[in-house]
Every structure is written in C-alpha cells, then in structure tokens.
C-alpha cells in the first residue's frame, strides 16, 4: 500500500497495523527518512532550518504503485507499505517510511533497500531547503542515487 500525505506518521503504529493478523510474516524491515539539519556533511557551514517537499499529484502515486508492484514481483513479500510526506518539515521530522514484511529476513531487507533506491530516482518529489537566513535552495539530484538504483538492474 502507498500513501502520499502532508501529515506526520507514527512508525510503530504503522508497523503494528501492517503485521496485525498476518502470522505468515516472519520478519519486517523498515526504513525511515528524516529531515537533517545539514546538506551533505556535518561540517557544512550552512544549516538547513526547514525543507519543503513539492510533488506531482497523480504521477507520484502512479510511480510509487509501480515500484511496489516491481518489489512484490521480485521478492516473496507478505506486505509492503510506503508513506511519503509533502509540504514543509523541520529537522528531525519524518519524510518517508518504507516497510516490507516477508516470511524470511533476506527478502524484507533487500526489498526495502530496493524500494528506497527506486523511490529516490523515480518518484516525482523535489526538496527545497531553507537555510538559517530563510533563503530557499532547490536540492540537486545526486549521481550516487542513480548508481544505487541502477545496481538493481544487474
């Protein structure tokens, strides 16, 4: 299941809801992406004071559903949950949650990593970072993210 929403989510409650009543699940893997207060390294002089996530309503849901379908096709998954927020967020807030549940851990670990790698290069979201002075900067895409996604095509 995928959800695109402005409001925050409760990681524990989401995981409990997903596993409740499904005793075929032997392992759950989750990844939570947070807003951090620097751009690339802790030594960066400019602090990020907030971030606004813009997205393409319609295409976002379509791409997330496609990515979920690929993961379900590739690994024996009992359940999948992807939640991605949009709007303005401050450091420490949740941005994204990926949860994968399977009978065995390997499928859960691998598919969660795959979902994050694909989401980062396919789902139409854009980050606008605000610095200490309130100036906004659009975040550039990183080549490392493309590399991470392309390894799953091998």
């Amino acid at each position, binding site marked *: 299941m995928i959800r695109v929403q402005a409001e925050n989510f409760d990681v524990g409650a989401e995981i409990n809801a997903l596993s409740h009543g499904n005793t075929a699940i032997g392992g759950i893997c989750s990844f939570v992406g947070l807003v951090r207060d620097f751009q690339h390294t802790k030594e960066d002089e400019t602090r990020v004071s907030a971030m606004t996530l*813009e997205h*393409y309503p319609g295409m976002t849901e379509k*791409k997330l559903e496609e990515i979920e379908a690929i993961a379900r096709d590739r690994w024996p998954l009992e359940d999948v949950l992807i939640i991605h927020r949009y709007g303005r967020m401050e450091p420490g807030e949740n*941005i994204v949650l990926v949860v994968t549940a399977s009978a065995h851990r390997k499928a859960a670990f691998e598919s969660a990593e795959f979902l994050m790698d694909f989401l*980062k290069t396919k*789902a*139409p979201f854009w980050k606008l970072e605000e610095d200490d002075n309130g100036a906004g900067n*659009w975040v*550039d895409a990183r080549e490392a993210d493309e590399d991470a996604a392309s390894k799953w095509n091998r």
Partner: protein
Amino acid sequence: MKILYFAWLRTTIGCTEEEITLPDNVTCVKEVLNHLRSKGGVYEQALGEDKVIRVALNQDYVQDDAPVSNNDEFAIFPPVTGG
C-alpha cells in the same frame, strides 16, 4: 496540451500549468521543448541546453522522440530529489 512545471522550472517560468495548442509541425517531446524555448525570456532561461530536465508524458517518463498530441499532459521538472 496541458503543460505542468515543477520545482525550479515552476519558479523560473513563474507558472504552475498552462494550456497550449501545438503547431502542426510539433509532434514529439523534443519539438515541444523547442517550441516552448522559442517563446524566449524565462522559457529560454529555464529550458536552456545547459539545464538538466526530465519530461513526463501522461505521468510516465519519456524520451525526446516520444510522440505527443494536444490531449496529453506534459510535465517538465528537474531530476527528482525525494526520499
């Protein structure tokens, strides 16, 4: 054709979406981009050859040579940075 702009393309061009009628000689993605560029000003600035952009046609990623029609939803945006 409905054109949508996102992120810095939206802020540079100064518009979220617009409706255009394609000239008869504009039949593929690359030609739509050239057509918009030919409007000059902020379009030329946002869609310059040095800019890295992506195009989605009816909410799917497409290459430059994909065919287009007036009924399509054509979105232009920078490489994505979510997650």
